[in-house]
């Protein structure tokens, strides 16, 4: 049996590995993204390729070195570059002399059953549905807990406590093999996280929404753990992008898209690929929900996000919500980001205090 690998995106490896394991395939999870991954990726990628491309390539090289034989990768046919990643990555890896099979998940996938069979061999079809269910449950549990983590970091008892609980949770959910147990584990850790609640670190609740390109929003290594930093600064973070939400949207099962399009319509009339329109739409929605600020994350030279970056200042002005755009590439340094975040959060705090007026006495 050939060994399967796939790129990292935050904790996505847990459900993906569960899916393949349930089907009886062996998987090679690439080593956690590190400086080495990035260096490998940067070394062999085209220089203007966006950051996710480079990290993915680094993942693949590290996984192939560990004996992976099949690469499963996402694809697409939209105007975002992601749809063409796999083709170029395959060419680069072959040029480097690796031998492997590249399997791309994209529309029109099932029209070529022969290829699927050639790559994976016999697929136990009766186990496809249970495997998908298992993966989905794990993904949903992770997303639900993480949503809580984003909120509770701002008001944890001991610094770093919530992170520790979350890491333990991921470890445990990764090891589970039964669907029923997922629910129990989720409940247990939900309680644990809620138990760690104390006062807000800043004394008031500051809520920041994160919008932008999915990889940069989800993957803590590339966004320099911006959510953790915000949590440490005592900020409640929320976002619309989660793996499960994204999957629902991808399968056209989400009602969120319509709302988003309506909200964005005034500023950006049509779909521009990737999450360009989503960034605008969600910024508007979060402004309506009275959030204190919006942070946009995207890789350098990301085409859809450049459009939304040009338009976001207008959204900020008209909807009355401060927006900070952060673009990342392989040279982004954490000190710079930290300084900017601190300044931004101080600004929001001041703004909120001035708006509420009465807060001064209680401090």
């Amino acid at each position: 049996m050939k060994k399967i690998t796939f790129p990292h995106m935050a904790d996505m490896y847990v459900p993906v590995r569960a899916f393949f394991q349930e089907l009886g395939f062996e998987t090679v999870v690439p080593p956690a993204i590190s400086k080495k991954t990035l260096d490998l990726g940067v070394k062999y990628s085209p220089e203007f390729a966006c950051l996710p491309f480079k990290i993915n390539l680094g993942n693949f090289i590290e996984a192939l070195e560990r004996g992976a034989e099949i690469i499963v990768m996402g694809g697409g046919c939209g105007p975002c570059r992601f749809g063409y990643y796999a083709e170029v990555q395959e060419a680069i890896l072959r040029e480097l002399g690796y031998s492997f099979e590249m399997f791309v998940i994209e529309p029109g996938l099932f029209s070529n059953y022969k290829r699927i069979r050639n790559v994976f061999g016999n697929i136990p079809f009766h186990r496809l549905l249970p495997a998908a269910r298992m993966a989905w449950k794990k993904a949903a549990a992770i997303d639900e807990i993480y949503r809580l983590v984003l909120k509770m970091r701002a008001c944890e008892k001991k610094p770093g406590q919530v992170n520790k609980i979350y890491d333990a949770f991921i470890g445990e959910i990764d090891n589970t093999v039964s669907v029923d147990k997922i629910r129990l584990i989720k409940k247990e850790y939900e309680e644990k996280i809620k138990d760690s609640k104390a006062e807000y670190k800043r004394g008031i609740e500051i809520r920041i929404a994160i919008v932008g390109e999915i990889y940069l929003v989800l993957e803590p290594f590339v966004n320099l753990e911006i959510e953790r930093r915000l949590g440490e600064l005592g900020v409640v973070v929320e976002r619309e992008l989660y793996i499960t939400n994204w999957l629902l949207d991808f399968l056209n099962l989400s009602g969120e898209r319509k709302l988003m399009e309506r909200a964005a319509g005034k500023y950006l009339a049509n779909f521009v690929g990737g999450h360009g329109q989503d960034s605008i739409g969600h910024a508007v929605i979060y402004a309506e929900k009275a959030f204190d600020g919006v942070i946009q994350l995207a890789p350098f030279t990301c085409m859809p996000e450049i459009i939304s970056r040009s338009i976001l200042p207008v959204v900020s002005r008209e909807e009355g919500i401060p927006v900070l755009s952060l673009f990342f590439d392989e040279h982004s340094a954490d000190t710079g980001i930290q300084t900017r975040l601190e300044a931004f959060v101080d600004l929001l705090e001041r703004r909120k205090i001035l708006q509420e007026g009465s807060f001064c006495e209680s401090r």
Partner: protein
Amino acid sequence: MSVKIGIPRALMYHYYYPAWRVFFEELGLNVVLSPETNKDIIDQGMRIAVDDICLPFKVYYGHILYLKDIVDCLFVPRFISLGKYNYVCPKFMGLPDMLKANIAGLPDIIEPFIDLRKGIFPLRRTAHDIGRRFGRNYFSIERAYGKARKIHRSFIELQEKGIHTNEAFEMLLKNNNIIRRESEKNLNIAVLGHAYLLNDYFASMGIIKRLEGMGVCVRTVEMYRKCWREKAADKYHKRVFWYFNRQVMGAAYHIFEKDSIDGIVQVTAFGCGPDSLVRELIDIEGKKRKISIMNINIDEHSAEAGLMTRLEAFVDLIERRKMA
């Protein structure tokens, strides 16, 4: 007095100018074209545009700034797709919105949706929408549309005969006949890249003219017939879903297979998304086939001297290679 409509001399101008001009003139409008790109225009554009957008868009911003006070309306079509299964670069899709967000005091913007994924037919309806906006009747719009289509076809034909875009504009719109010099060195170099960068003399630092000045015969993407390009583009890789990059890729593979060319120069604007990936594929393939390829990145800080040195070195190199 007739309505003045402004067409910026940037981006899609380099693909559709004759058709646009004829269409609007037939409708009885006064077409105002911005001047050729100069330092001032680029500087103006740079000041307003987001910093990591590519150079051609900064140039476009500059042209819009030049035009906005002297015309009654601006023609900024919103390109989505130029054929079945493909898109253009996402930045074109949000172009009118970006302009509205970044530039204050714009005149009326005519922003038709150009989406040809379902065939060429919706284009006629778009033309009628525009015509009706200026109070023209069905037949005059139809006539204008027909003439525009016709001149666009002859524009494409001229290009396929090996005439550069700017010269084709002259021939079609001013009826100047251009006599092309024969190249002295008998060297053929294909310059691959987007027409909106290559044909902008100032933005591309006259890369085509400079090569021709060295006595090289320059071929561009548009000079390879479209059916050849389409055929070659699909053969090796997954369908490239950006229209213009598909053309570049097709031209490159056509060159690899059939055309005798001495070298390829790939010109890319810094930060161009589609190019960053497609260029890599062409690079890898060219290396396998032992074809000399030089990659040039252009942004607003590129210096002429550096470019000139590299071009000279490249031409010398392939000249020697050919003699050997």
